[in-house]
């Protein structure tokens, strides 16, 4: 009887093992990999988009994702170190600058910095010394700040204010603010009345601007939330001043329709999808898409300058269909498409806008 029980248990074990293997092989195509994706939070809009598109690509390409919330502080590095120690990790993608500490912990595992401009040239130089550093790919925050200023200027704004995130906290917001100020300085008929940098107090800043400068006709905020949009209403600026932001929120359409919001940008998760392709290229056959990681790959934001453009954005970028399909990402993999090289990726970035997405995915 005991031998029969042992035999039955052994058969069950074998069947379940084979079933798991078979199940794993049926998921997606290609060999199985495991990546880490780290972002400070997956609860906000952009974070949830990052997670969704990575899960989508993971299913299509047989990649298991471990999502880590946090930054590259001690706690974040400890989480990555624990994952590395398990011995089954194939790639690390972080929405942060790849620090020497991270690269050391990663060992042989490739590391790619995603959607975050390197903090400094010195940091890039240090990172490049590590053979497992694949490079950085991010959206051009300087370009988006400059374009936002252009958007306000085109809307007739000449007396403007700037509300940004605390200086030094994140380079992306610093670059947006710097670009905005550069644009204003280039225009003789445009004046920066005041600027304010805070963490989470932009609503107050808008109130202070409105109270101090009755002649104010334009505001740029380096990020956009419903609170900032609603502040335009509570401060009585709807119909009197225009707003430009970066990021899309639930009230974006409303404020485009009433003419308050004249410009915004979004779609950063598309860069993360391209980053996935860069990482996958390396792990599948060692192809380095970024030939010299000292030079980062920079892509544009999707710019939205009106209600019509916003409706297209919602349809083609933010409605569940991703900006790149699994087949389009497959075309970015050199293993499947021999034309997928650095120039191919650069061309993808140059063409990345609403019209391009609409052309690729439109009816």
């Amino acid at each position, binding site marked *: 009887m005991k031998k029969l029980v042992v035999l039955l248990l052994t058969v069950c074990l074998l069947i379940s093992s084979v079933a798991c293997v078979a199940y794993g092989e049926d998921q997606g195509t290609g060999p199985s990999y495991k990546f880490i994706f780290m972002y400070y939070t997956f*609860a906000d809009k952009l974070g949830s988009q990052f997670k969704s598109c990575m899960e989508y690509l993971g299913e299509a390409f047989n990649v298991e994702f471990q999502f880590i919330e946090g930054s590259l502080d001690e706690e974040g590095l400890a989480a990555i170190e624990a994952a590395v120690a398990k011995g089954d990790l194939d790639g690390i993608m972080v929405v942060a600058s790849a620090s020497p500490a991270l690269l050391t912990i990663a060992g042989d595992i490739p590391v790619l910095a995603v959607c975050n401009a390197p903090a400094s040239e010195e940091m890039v130089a240090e990172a490049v010394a590590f053979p497992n550093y694949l490079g950085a790919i991010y959206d051009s925050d300087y370009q988006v700040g400059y374009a936002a200023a252009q958007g306000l200027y085109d809307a007739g704004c000449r007396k403007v204010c700037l509300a940004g995130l605390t200086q030094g906290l994140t380079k992306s917001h610093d670059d947006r603010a710097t670009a905005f100020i550069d644009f204003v300085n280039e225009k003789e008929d445009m004046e920066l009345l005041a600027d304010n*940098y805070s*963490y989470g107090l932009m609503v*107050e800043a808008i109130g202070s601007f409105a109270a101090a400068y009755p002649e104010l006709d334009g505001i740029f905020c380096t990020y956009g939330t419903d609170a900032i949009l609603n502040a335009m209403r509570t401060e009585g600026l709807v119909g009197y001043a225009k707003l430009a932001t970066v990021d899309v929120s639930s009230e974006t359409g409303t404020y485009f329709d009433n003419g308050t919001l004249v410009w915004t940008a979004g779609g950063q998760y598309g860069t993360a999808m391209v980053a996935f392709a860069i990482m996958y290229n390396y792990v599948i056959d060692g192809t380095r898409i970024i030939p010299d990681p000292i030079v980062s790959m920079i892509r544009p934001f999707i710019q939205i300058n009106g209600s019509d453009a916003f409706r297209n954005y919602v349809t083609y970028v933010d409605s569940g269909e991703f900006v790149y399909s699994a087949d389009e990402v497959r075309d970015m993999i050199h293993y499947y498409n021999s034309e997928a090289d650095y120039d191919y990726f650069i061309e993808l970035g140059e063409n990345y806008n609403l019209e391009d997405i609409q052309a690729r995915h439109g009816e």
Partner: protein
Amino acid sequence: MNRKTILKTIVNTLKALALPILVFVAFAILTNGRSSSQRMIMTTLRQSVLPMLVCYSIMLNMVVGMINFSAGAAILLSGIVGGSLALATGTGVLGVVLFSTITGISTGALTGFIYIKLRVPCMVLTIGLMLAYEAMPRLVYPNGVNLTWTYTTLAVAPYCFVVAGIMIVIFYVISNLTAFGHNLRAIGSNQAIADSVGLNSDRSKFLSFLCGGLFIGIAAAMYVSTNAEVRPTTAIGSMVIMLDGFIGMFLAMFISRYCNLAIAIPISVVTMKMISNGFVSLGMSATIRDVTNGVLLLVLLTISANQGLFERMKQNKLFAQKADAEYQSTRTQ
């Protein structure tokens, strides 16, 4: 009330109002009237409501020598929970206030309970709880809360001023007209003596957290009404919510020499906001504004900390002269 008392009250009132009047006039002149417009005054007063509530909350603990660093995180937690429950129950603004207040008082009770039972220094405890309270919303509401327009009425005038007025009265009553308020001051002056005369320090400290939780709840309702969209934060990101109130607390302690603390707190936070908005009106760059703000605060706190210094030096000198004169007279005898 005799003439001397009336005169003393007038002098103290003038001393209490001297700083805000000075700041107002100075910036009005420097900004050619930009900072003294009706709109700016209303905006400054409106922006002062939240820091005032935060200040009331942490002052109840500060009176007995405890600093509550978890107030900002508790506000965040109460706002997210309160706002979400109000949305779920469809109870509107009243629901936001009710649920935020209940959550705020609960956090206060929890903080007080842990403090009393574990005997951990307040600073250490509240820093730890700050991280805990920041993480708690993620368990139930990982996306935070996003209130619609109809739920944010509390943030606009005159409703925010009605709230402020009610809370000023409540703090005045708690602090000055209840045994609890008197006990807090007694414990804050000298806990050993307070214990020896039979005051229950543990109970009073617990109640200070509980009452502080009431102000935290109302502050949370104001915060979520102002911002409409509030997300959980991490890594002490909630400190920014309580920063203005925290700094205003020190100025309030200076001004409270001349007036009741319930009045000193609004005076101090309005003064801080006038300074901040005054610099915006001046068109100063953010960097220079921050440096000047910090230096100004340092000057105020230095004056506050050393206010009796010259008087003491003068008295010491007089005493030394008197002692010397007596010595000389004994010698001649």
